[in-house]
């Protein structure tokens, strides 16, 4: 009994360090897990898309295959990429009015580029997605007196996906919206494939 009284009398010196220690450890664990989660999560958008879409082609997301908080008025399609196999080329011929959204997602969920159909010049979109090393190779073979005609985007991760969304302004237009997504061409860039580069 006497001993316990002594501990209570010591001004909290027994419990205070334990309490502070717990908070510090809790803070570190919390921060570490929040930062690690995107790398460990098994049900993230990339996993969801990998399960239904082969890389380097445009795949429409079937109904119910989207994520939470999707806009029901949008048709969605994806093009998965793996830059280890070479740069990715996206080409589109877009009608002037309907809304088309393009976003570029890195492996762990980060959106590293996004644009709408308004970014197209004269209805054409030509995007080359590559790594910094691949960009160096491409730039080395660029003609010196011409500006490149394509938009070149550096991806922060080798794997990831492009997400295409088309607005169906009226419920009956969902089919048209899906057709607009399927009219996109997305695949390994033929000019920059590894076989070509080796020659």
């Amino acid at each position, binding site marked *: 009994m006497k001993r316990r009284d002594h501990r209570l009398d010591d001004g909290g010196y027994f419990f205070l*360090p*334990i309490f502070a*220690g*717990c*908070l*510090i*450890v*809790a*803070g*570190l*664990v*919390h*921060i*570490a*897990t*929040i*930062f690690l*989660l*995107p790398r460990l*999560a098994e*049900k*993230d*958008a990339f*996993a*969801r898309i990998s399960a239904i879409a082969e890389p380097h082609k445009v795949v429409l997301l079937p109904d119910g295959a*989207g*994520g*939470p*908080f*999707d*806009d*029901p*008025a949008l048709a969605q399609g994806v093009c998965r990429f793996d830059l280890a196999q070479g740069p990715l080329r996206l080409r589109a011929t877009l009608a002037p009015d309907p*809304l088309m*959204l*393009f*976003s*570029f*997602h890195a492996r*762990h*969920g*980060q*959106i*590293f*580029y*996004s*644009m*709408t159909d*308004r970014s197209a010049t004269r209805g054409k979109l030509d995007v080359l997605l590559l790594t910094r090393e691949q960009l160096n190779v491409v730039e080395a073979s660029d003609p010196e007196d011409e500006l490149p005609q394509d938009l070149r985007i550096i991806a922060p991760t080798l794997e990831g996906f492009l*997400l295409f*969304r088309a*607005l*169906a*302004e*009226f*419920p009956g237009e969902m089919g048209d919206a899906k057709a607009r997504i399927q009219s996109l061409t997305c695949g390994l860039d033929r000019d920059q494939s590894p076989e070509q580069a080796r020659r």
Partner: protein
Amino acid sequence: MLQIFKLIIIALIGLGLGLRATYYAVERGQDEGFGDGLIFGSVKAGPWTGWPKSGSRDADPYARALFARNGETPLGLTEGLSFLARADSGGKTINPFCDYVVKGSIPAARFWTLSALSPEGRPLATISERHGFTSSELLRDTTGGFEIRVSASAQPGNWLEIPSDQHFVLMLRLYDTALSANPFSVTASAMPAIVREGCQ
């Protein structure tokens, strides 16, 4: 001996608390709406809350952790802006037994949509199979104003049907909007109000 015991206690309690905090931030937050609040850089305008940075390279760690867990693909900042409402303009949580009218102004955007979703962000099962309205299909009055009636029973005009016994949230999306350049400048008066009408 006491020192080692202390360290073990600290490590165990700290680990428990830290994991608990992460669980609340990411898992429970999805169902109950705490998670939305934890993401930094939110912009509030009336009943609406948006997280414009979630769709950019500047997405904060909480946003990334949440999206990694729920598989959400947010809108890219230059694609448009999303705003979520879990409460009405009076500050009361949206109640599935009440009727609501969404009306007022809307920030300039090439297109916008208003949709009702479950609190977890999934489509609601309705008989009319309507989950939302786009700016193109909306019936407007002579001055270009609009009113969307959110109700479980049929309404004249723009009727957004909701199931009578299921909680829901409202989501407003602005596509191709000049607001993307400065999303934090949006004010309550620029956004539509969510007005509660009668309740069952």
